[in-house]
């Protein structure tokens, strides 16, 4: 179980970072209109950030119930 | 403190309806005071009422399924503008041809004209209105079944 989520998150983070980077580079060289660049970043940046965090340390605990008091 | 008293009043949901009613009442009074609002003569969808028609007051003129000239906002978008009476189903058409009073029953059966303002040009309105009805019926029927 651990491996799967970590792998998915890793791939997602890599995809997000590559997409953001590629969009920024293409926009810089004028090969991508601004709105497309903004759209890719708005979609890619959160995915990249959260997936990166998950990839660092995901799913090593067991599911638990919420905190219900001290 | 006055703020605390207001918030004590506001925090009960039973007070929402009187509050809203009061707000509406104030606004309606303000709108009465703001009268007269000037009526703009150059209207979209002008009306010509033919009192003799069996479709009165829904008759827009012209035979069913045939185009009449009406004033649309974007005539270029709606080449079939004015096909108003095409809302009549064959049954409604039959009623209109044989009786004089379809205009009074026209909203009451499927295929009748749903609303006066809803021309063919404003098709999306028709869709949304019937969807509102559908949603309301869905809620009512769900609640009915739940109670049973």
């Amino acid at each position, binding site marked *: 179980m651990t491996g799967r989520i970590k792998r998915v998150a890793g791939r997602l983070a890599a995809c997000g970072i590559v997409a953001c980077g590629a969009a920024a580079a293409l926009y810089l060289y004028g090969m991508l209109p601004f709105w497309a660049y903004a759209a890719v970043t708005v979609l890619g940046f959160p995915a990249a950030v959260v997936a990166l965090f998950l990839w660092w340390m995901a799913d090593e605990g067991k599911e638990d119930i919420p905190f219900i008091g001290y | 403190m006055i703020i605390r008293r207001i918030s004590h009043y506001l925090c009960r949901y039973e007070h929402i309806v009187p509050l809203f009613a009061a707000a509406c009442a104030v*606004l309606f009074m303000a709108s009465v005071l703001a009268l007269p609002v000037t*009526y703009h003569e150059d209207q979209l969808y002008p009306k010509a009422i033919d009192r003799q028609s069996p479709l009165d007051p829904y008759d827009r003129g012209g035979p069913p399924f045939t185009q009449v000239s009406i004033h649309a906002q974007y005539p270029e978008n709606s080449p079939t503008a004015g096909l108003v009476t095409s809302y009549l189903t064959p049954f409604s058409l039959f009623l209109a041809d044989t009786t004089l009073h379809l205009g009074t029953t026209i909203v009451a059966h499927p295929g009748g004209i749903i609303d006066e303002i809803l021309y063919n040009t404003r098709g999306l*309105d028709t869709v949304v209105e019937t969807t509102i009805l559908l949603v309301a019926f869905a809620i009512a029927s769900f609640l009915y079944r739940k109670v049973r």
Partner: protein
Amino acid sequence: MGSLGGIPLYVLEFGDELVYFSPYTITLFLLALTFTLLAIVSRPERQVDVAFGGDAYTTKIISVDEMRFRRFMAIACGLASMGAMVTGDVFNFTLFTAMVGITNVGIVAAVKSPHVQDAAYQYGLVALSATVPLFGAAALYAAATGSLSMIELAKGTLPAVPLVAKALLVIGVVGEGMAPFYAAKAEMFRAPGAPYVIMCSLSSLLIFLRVAEVVMIG
């Protein structure tokens, strides 16, 4: 004050009703779409209640029937708010807003808690009566300017919209969305079933955001 939400990027023609995507409306539209998709894919959470005086806790589980109905209502609500976001026609906007009000009641109508249902009932009364100023405003718009299209109104060639019409429109939306008088809505949000309940608050915020644009044009 022509293009408040930015220049329309794309105009979709529905006969006399234009649907336009300006940067503002497209942002709101996409958010409504995102949350509708979330409401479709996520399962309702199980709300945890602590039993008083002990360590025990219970979870509320939503039955499949109830979940299906509420999901349907949430999707309808999402569609109505999407429509209200992009429509370029005042009357159409009021219709979508009225639909948002009805679906909001529908989302919590299936909840078993009497407290929530009481609040939903009060809210339903307000939403019902709010349609009067709402459609009255649309009628005033049509009578005073001769047009209902926001694009035409924004051009500034038509006569100005009377302030009363704008005020009526705002109070209608306030009644449908309960924007400042949140007491009843806040009680409704105690209902379990997060993805659906969120559509209530999202839709009312969205129609409020849109009406801010609508009253500033024309």
